[in-house]
């Protein structure tokens, strides 16, 4: 993005923030620090969710959504403070050090029992990440062909139950602690394919893997229980209704779709798995 566009984007955000401040007082007194919205992201935060691991820039899908949401809730860009948490930190019992936490948390019924989620801000397709070698050996985007592959996945994601639900591979999948280990195993030829949300799969295939390829995607509306990302809050958070209301307004005004189009546009054009 050019410098001019960036500053225009920031100006727009700040402008929105000032305009919105008057109309939404829902969040006042409900945040960790008065007049500040503390937002958590991953450590590190990955492309394309946050560009260059710098959420303060507002670049990247989740960073942009965060600033748009803050503006909608009446916080200016300066009133947004960023912190970092791991997955385990965000679900540990006790006081949280963030108001909202967005790092591609999938909303599930079981997780809802322990923490609060906002309404979804993104519905992700699941994609099959593999290497050119596996495709050359005859793997195709059909369930039958996928069943025969040796699978891997990030153990901390909902890809694990989806793998069993959508593909049901013949051999037990191998699971890893993070994206880096999954790609290391794929590079070492220990697994053929791995299941990720589509934007992450595109990033890993283009940047991390040497001869990475996307075999195909399962569209978000394909499974009974699509992978929907929600913002995580403390169980019983008073802020939830404000966040939900703001997200609803962002969705209805089309602003959320615009942000998605700006940052996640390459996701179209990946073949759909039959």
């Amino acid at each position, binding site marked *: 993005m050019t410098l001019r566009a960036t500053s225009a984007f920031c100006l727009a955000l700040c402008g929105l923030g000032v305009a919105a401040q008057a109309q939404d007082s829902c969040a006042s007194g409900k945040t960790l620090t008065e007049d500040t919205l503390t937002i958590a992201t991953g450590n590190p935060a990955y492309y394309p969710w946050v560009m260059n691991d710098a959420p303060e820039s507002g670049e990247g899908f989740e960073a942009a959504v965060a600033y748009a949401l803050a503006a909608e809730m009446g916080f200016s860009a300066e009133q947004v403070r960023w912190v970092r948490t791991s*997955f385990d930190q965000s679900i*540990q*019992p006790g006081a949280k050090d963030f108001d909202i936490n967005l790092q591609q948390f999938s909303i599930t019924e*079981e*997780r809802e*029992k322990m923490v609060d989620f906002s309404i979804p801000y993104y519905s992700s397709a699941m994609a099959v990440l593999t290497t050119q070698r596996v495709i050359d050996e005859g793997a195709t985007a059909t369930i039958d062909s996928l069943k025969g592959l040796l699978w891997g996945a990030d153990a901390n994601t909902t890809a694990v139950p989806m793998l069993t639900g959508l593909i049901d591979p013949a051999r037990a999948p191998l*699971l890893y*602690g993070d994206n880096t280990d999954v790609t290391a195993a794929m590079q070492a*030829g220990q697994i053929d394919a791995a299941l990720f949300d589509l934007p992450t799969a595109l990033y890993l295939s283009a940047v991390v893997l040497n001869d990475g390829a996307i075999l195909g995607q399962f569209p978000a509306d394909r499974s009974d229980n699509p992978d929907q990302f929600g913002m995580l809050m403390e169980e019983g958070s008073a802020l939830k209704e404000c966040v939900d209301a703001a997200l609803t307004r962002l969705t209805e005004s089309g602003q959320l779709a615009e942000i998605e189009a700006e940052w996640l546009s390459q996701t179209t054009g990946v073949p759909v798995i039959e």
Partner: protein
Amino acid sequence: MSAPTRRQIFETRQRRRANGIAAASTCAVLVSVVLLVPLAPGWEAVQRSFFNAEVFANTFPGLLNAFLLDVAIFAWCAPLIAALGLLVALARDLRTPALYPVRLLAIAYTDVFRGLPVILVIYLIGFGIPGLGLPRPWNSPYIWGSLALILVYAAYVAEVIRSGIESIHQSQRAAALSLGLSGADTMRFVILPQALRRVVPANMNLFVALQKDVALLSFIGPVEIFRQAGVYKSLMANFTPYVGAAIIFLAITIPATRYADYLMNITRRTQS
């Protein structure tokens, strides 16, 4: 048996009194923990995250199943560790000048592998060697992860066995040689039988530690109990499955440690 002496009666009474006090103080501590901890303001949240009966019941069978993989990995690693450890210990004890390079190699091996964190060795060997381009099934994480465990633990076992060998007095060796035994026979029939017996408790401790470190193999793919617990944790946003895994580990390691202690006591008694 004759009637107890006054001294014996006194000692019995003393012992009973000591036992009573020990029991009472243990009870007092237990009761105060059970009563006081739930008074902490965050107890309910901690209980829901770590000691959730519903989550426990749902995940425990899956954890038990995943534990079988730990047992299997342990079962094929342990004999190989024992064999390699013995070989390295013997190599370190070589006294022929011509074989000095072998001895040097054994010293370097134990120094390097005792000095590295297990997880680093597992990553290096588990991802590194298959990355060289080995075909399946020879790039399996089970093979190379197990090799990493074997290399690290054999280094420890070798040092323990060497300490056993060195604890046998020099005069035994001299006596065996003067009886006409060859160097190899001296080691095999005189030194090793005594040395190995002495280090059984120390080795038991190492195998208890191995039992837990098997879980580190999960970092390179195998879905054993620790990884399975992590999957449940992630799906339910709840740490209870880790507690379930801990209970399963304890069920194995506590009896094993007690047994090691028992063996150690026997050795001490026979030596004194």
